[in-house]
């Protein structure tokens, strides 16, 4: 079972988020360009066909391998289904309607844990008594879900009574048992096979503290994770004496290690290429030991940690980036590729290596062969640091004569991965090369890479990495120098505004979506107002301080303001499309409007579009379709290319209703 | 004290004669025919008014005229009685009234083409009969 699903949270690429990382390949650029040049020109697909809505989600394998539970989405409604592993067995609908957005199996495969934003329910497919609400989240004590109990049917919960945090187990029927309590906030726990909390992670100021249960009773600290070190508790070792940890406590990059009760750290597995953070760790759920460690990138890698596992993985070499869930019997495999729209799930027989298609969430998908590959590459920054990036080019064309669009990811503590991207695929299909820089400060390449930004998000290295990446590609014969554009959402939008107004004159057009016009102001605002700041119990202002962006530091604020698009609004002379969200919970709409008003007042060549009711990261497919149309139109207008098809009637109606355009 | 004599008279409204006149005529006729004898006590004003369903004042007026004409006489505290017959009219008046009566009679007889001598004989018989009744 991958670690990420155990987190049970909702990760979104967004401004001021901290997410995980992945590795890249050395210099595969030339080979990739040649290969793509040789391929036939892809046919033009309708714009709306690129949008990909999830129709099946939370597909999860029972630890005994007997079946797969999943959620089906129909018209916004979620229903719960059970697909037995046996060949030919039909899927069974367990619930016609559910509020759950994520499901998990108990270790004994008898219970399904259904997690909704406000409650946890448990359901026995076999009809055992006790089905129903296990816990109602929120409330006076701010009860929240920590995770699944790895051994016993139920979940781990944390709440707060006065000055104390309490760790609970809640099982079928809502029976609750206190596992531990602390004066510090409990953010993680590893449960022993005896059902007691063996290791607990606590918040201690600007660091995290891991404590272990003493044989005599009580807990004692064994180690601290400082300076934003990650240390996620994966589970107790079979001898109950140590805990498996995913984190960067040893070395640069995040790895799988073992932490003993005396604080001793032992590496179990790290990226042999010393390039990227560990991405996924699959546990053998029956035994509670790590089974597979995986690393991502255009050269994804997977390593078996248990005897025999490597052999089975070898049979999966055709799908090196697929996600795997193991069980004592059959395995569940989810195909993953930049060119695969939607998802496909297979059952793998570990013994024979036979794969059988289990679920496909799309009736029709764009042909993967006609879609763009995503290639990871690196380039040397002007200060010598190696910077990673992703590139996609249209097939069958001379890459030097296609327009180049730089798409900057948000966060900034995040990264672009190589999954299917509707925007990238559309632009490449329309004949644009798409460059996605993993500028310094991005995650997934180790702590040093992330901290290399040194809080300089003005004219500093971050922005230079982005622009240098573009220049590097132009120099390598990718993209027409006179037809370049930059776009991005959130931090990417900020970077776009920076690029267009910092005098570099590199880009001929830009699209800034929900951009903070003044990084400092927005950080400060978020630290004060945002309900978004807590990561592992750590308040955003603390995180920012650790990232050299102390919101209370006036000097930093002034520097960031001086170097902000807002301060340079008069310099905006490049065609710009500014898209803002009216219900933006991260970048206050007021700050974008203030900036947009300045643009208008100064007569800048900027179009302003405000999506009145959209949040920072819209999930509305209509919004996605609208933004694709707007991007295609903008780039066609300023970079040349094929005129976009007019929006369909329903989209035009939605745009008239939902967008304010000036 | 004498008893009140029954006074069997009726009056008719809508007659060309006033009610006073009708009462007077009726009492006169009853006295003339002997239905009322001298000394008979007449009904009280109220009594007769009730009997005839008329205003007592009307009865009073009739009684007053009959008294003035001498047909009735009032005995203080006792009521009205039929008076002893006296001639109340002057000779000339009597002559005039006779003349009128003869005129009317003759007119009627002529109108029915009745022989004059037979008419005179009939008048004589009528007077004879009247005398007989009175003496009976």
């Amino acid at each position: 079972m991958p670690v990420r699903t155990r987190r049970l949270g909702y990760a979104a690429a967004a401004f001021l988020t901290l997410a995980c990382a992945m590795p890249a390949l050395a210099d595969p650029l030339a080979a990739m360009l040649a290969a793509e040049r040789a391929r036939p020109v892809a046919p033009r697909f309708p714009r709306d066909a690129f949008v990909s809505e999830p129709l099946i989600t939370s597909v999860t394998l029972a630890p005994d391998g007997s079946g797969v539970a999943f959620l089906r989405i129909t018209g916004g409604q979620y229903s719960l289904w059970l697909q037995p592993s046996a060949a030919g067995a039909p899927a069974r609908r367990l619930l016609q309607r559910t509020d759950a957005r994520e499901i998990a199996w108990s270790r004994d495969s008898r219970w399904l844990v259904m997690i909704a934003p406000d409650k946890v329910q448990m359901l026995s497919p076999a009809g055992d008594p006790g089905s129903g609400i296990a816990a109602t989240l929120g409330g006076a004590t701010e009860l929240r879900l920590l995770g699944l109990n790895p051994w016993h049917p139920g979940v781990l919960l944390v709440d707060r009574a006065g000055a104390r945090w309490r760790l609970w187990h809640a099982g079928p029927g809502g029976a609750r048992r206190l596992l531990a309590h602390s004066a510090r906030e409990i953010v993680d726990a590893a449960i022993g096979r005896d059902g007691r909390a063996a290791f607990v992670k606590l918040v201690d100021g600007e660091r995290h503290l891991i404590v272990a249960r003493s044989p005599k009773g009580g807990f004692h600290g064994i180690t601290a994770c400082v300076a934003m070190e990650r240390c996620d508790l994966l589970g107790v070792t079979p001898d109950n004496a140590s805990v498996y940890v995913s984190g960067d406590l040893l070395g640069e990059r995040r790895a799988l290690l073992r932490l003993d009760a005396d604080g001793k750290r032992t590496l179990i597995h790290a990226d042999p290429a010393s390039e990227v953070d560990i991405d996924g760790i699959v546990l053998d759920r029956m035994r509670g030991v790590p089974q597979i460690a995986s690393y991502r990138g255009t050269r994804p890698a997977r390593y078996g940690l248990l005897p025999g596992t490597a052999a089975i993985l070898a049979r999966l070499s055709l799908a090196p980036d697929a996600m795997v869930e193991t069980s004592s019997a059959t395995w569940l495999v989810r195909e993953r590729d930049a060119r695969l729209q939607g998802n496909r799930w297979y059952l793998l027989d570990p013994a024979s290596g036979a794969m059988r298609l289990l679920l496909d969430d799309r009736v029709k998908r764009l042909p993967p062969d006609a879609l763009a590959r995503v290639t990871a590459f690196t380039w040397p920054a002007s200060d010598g640091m190696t910077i990673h990036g992703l590139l996609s080019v249209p097939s069958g064309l001379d890459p030097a004569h296609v327009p180049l669009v730089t798409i900057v990811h948000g966060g900034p503590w995040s990264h672009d991965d190589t999954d299917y991207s509707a925007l990238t695929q559309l632009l490449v299909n329309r004949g644009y090369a798409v460059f996605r820089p993993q500028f310094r400060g991005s995650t997934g390449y180790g702590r040093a890479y992330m901290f290399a930004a040194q809080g300089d998000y003005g004219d500093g290295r971050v922005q230079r990495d982005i622009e240098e990446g573009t220049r590097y590609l132009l120099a390598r014969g990718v993209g027409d120098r006179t037809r370049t554009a930059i776009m991005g959402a959130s931090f990417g939008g900020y970077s776009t505004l920076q690029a267009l107004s910092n005098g570099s004159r590199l880009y001929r057009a830009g699209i800034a979506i929900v951009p903070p016009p003044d990084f400092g102001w927005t950080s400060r605002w978020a630290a004060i107002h945002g309900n978004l700041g807590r990561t592992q119990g750590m308040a955003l202002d603390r995180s920012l301080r650790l990232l050299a962006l102390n919101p209370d530091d006036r000097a930093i604020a002034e520097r960031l303001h001086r170097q902000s698009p807002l301060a340079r609004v008069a310099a905006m002379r490049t065609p710009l499309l500014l898209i803002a969200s009216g219900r933006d919970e991260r970048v206050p709409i007021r700050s974008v409007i203030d900036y947009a008003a300045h643009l208008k007042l100064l007569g800048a060549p900027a179009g302003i579009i405000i999506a009145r009711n959209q949040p920072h990261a819209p999930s509305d497919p209509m919004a996605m379709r609208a933004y694709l149309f707007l991007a295609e139109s903008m780039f066609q207008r300023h970079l040349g290319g094929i005129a976009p098809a007019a929006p369909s009637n329903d989209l035009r109606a939605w745009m008239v209703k939902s967008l304010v355009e000036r | 004290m004498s008893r009140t004599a029954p006074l069997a008279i009726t009056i008719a409204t809508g007659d060309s004669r006033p009610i006073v006149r009708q009462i007077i005529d009726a009492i006169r006729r009853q006295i003339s025919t002997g239905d009322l004898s001298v000394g008979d006590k007449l009904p009280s004003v109220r009594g007769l008014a009730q009997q005839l369903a008329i205003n007592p004042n009307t009865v009073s007026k009739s009684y007053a005229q009959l008294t003035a004409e001498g047909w009735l006489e009032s005995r203080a505290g006792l009521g009205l009685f039929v008076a002893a017959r006296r001639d109340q009219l002057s000779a000339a008046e009597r002559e005039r009234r006779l003349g009128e009566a003869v005129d009317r009679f003759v007119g009627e007889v002529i109108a029915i083409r009745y022989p004059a001598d037979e008419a005179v004989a009939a008048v004589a018989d009528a007077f004879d009969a009247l005398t007989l009744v009175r003496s009976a």
Partner: protein
Amino acid sequence: MFELYKAECRRFRWWALGAGALHAGILLFFDRMVDPLQQPAMIYELVAAIYAGAGVLLGLFQAGSYARINQWMALLHRPLSPRRVLIAVAGGSATMLAAAVLVPILLLLIGHGLIGSRFVDARHWLLGLSGMLIALTGLMGGIYAALSPRRYGWLVLIPALLPTASMAVGWAAIVVQTGVLVALALLVTSAFKPDLAEPPRTITGLAGTALTAAMGAYLLLVVAGDLVFQTLWITTGTHPLNGVPPRGGVTEATRADGAALIEAGLAGRQDNRARLWREQVRLSEIFEVPPTMKWLPVRGELTNVAPMEFDDERRGTRWTFSHDDMRFHGVRLSDGAALGTLDVPGGFDAPPLPIEGGHLIAGGSLLGFDADDGMIHRSIRLPAGETIVARPSTAGTALAVMSDRALRLYDVRVLDESAGSDAPLATVPLPGPVGSLMRLDLIELLDGYLVSFTYARDGVDGPADAWQQIVHVTGAGTSRPVARRTLTPDFPFVTRFAPYWISPALKVARDLAEHAGSGPVPMAQRTPVKIPLSIWIAAGLLAALSAAVVALLARRWRLGLRASAAWMLATLALGPPMLFAFWLIRPNRTA
């Protein structure tokens, strides 16, 4: 006289019994379905209208049965003074009506009080009393309508509608209703005389009838006159509000979308700052903050602005507020068991009005019921003496709270954090009385707000001045006015001031009567109306002219000198409505 009373009682006893039983049945039925004591004011108004209607019907029936001349002569031609006859006859029907109205109400209230889990406030007893008073007022109105001369009787009845317009609350409402009832009874007495067609014989009766008729004529002129005027306008197609309202006018301001309104408010400024604001206005979402609610709960009021209760669904409890002890009383919904009382530390400043989202407004406090701990917490407490006059609304990340003195903007999280600070982000003193504020629009600036206050209540077709004020609120919470423009009235001068020039004295009397006993109503604060001199002159001239016409008519009707003088003086004081009343009453006696 007592026999007459008894006979009249007997006459209606079966009716009273039937109506009372029906009344009790309906009350019982509704008591089963809802809590009759916790209905919104509209329901009570409806019920009062039914009581009044029943009274009117009874009065019309009873007096109507006597009003035919033969019956009237049979009733009044007896050795009793008309007043005593009236007391006996009207007393009989009033007794029966009062019993039919009051007894079921009292039974209900007693039933409520005895069940224990529910409570009956003092105000609920008064509410029953009020129901009876209104029924009796209807009865008197019906009697008056049946007996008074048709020429002016209906006019006299118009001011008897005062309870529907009165702002009096609690005991004061009872006093007002009693006053109207007594006045109406006196008017009935003055009309209760052998010759129904003639005006009252006594000077006091005549004066009372004349003054009331003048007030009726005034109200008619003001209301019906306006209606006629507007209808004429509409039919001729020249109504100022037909189609596009006049530019720069009050109507335009009240109908405009927020952005256009704020832009218009800034139109007077051409500097860069204002130009930037205008750009921001065009892009921004405009938050329209509701300026005031029509009514706020007042302690001891007879009815409810809204039901004074809310449900704790998690615990299955209904909390109902008692004015008597100023606490919520809980009842378990499933079985009606009493669950004690609920208070807030520091107590409620005023009866709390439940609003959306489990929040309560009480005087200067915004409170919230926390379903988690089942307690009421105070989110915001304004400085002493200030009252929240509107439902708080969100404006972006801010919560806009209107008080009678200031608009305050809070971090919207103030609602969630019961223990958090309730210091406002900004306090914007109102540039004018809150009652005159018609709309309030604001946009967020990068730091701070731009707020538009539109003062236009009574400024569309009424006499009030109307203006718009733009206030800039900085991030530090300070505010300063940045633009102001006068809104031009859309209606002609003549119609706007009609209530004044028709009769200033009656205008004052009407306002006094309607506001008497109103209790503390912050929303009633209005910009004082500036009456132009020309209106005073017009009113004076009209009064003089009316008095002259009265003099002419009085001569033609050969009225005595003293009576003529009295009528003229009254007309001089009250203007055309008095002339109207005089002409309709046609006094023909030297009184």
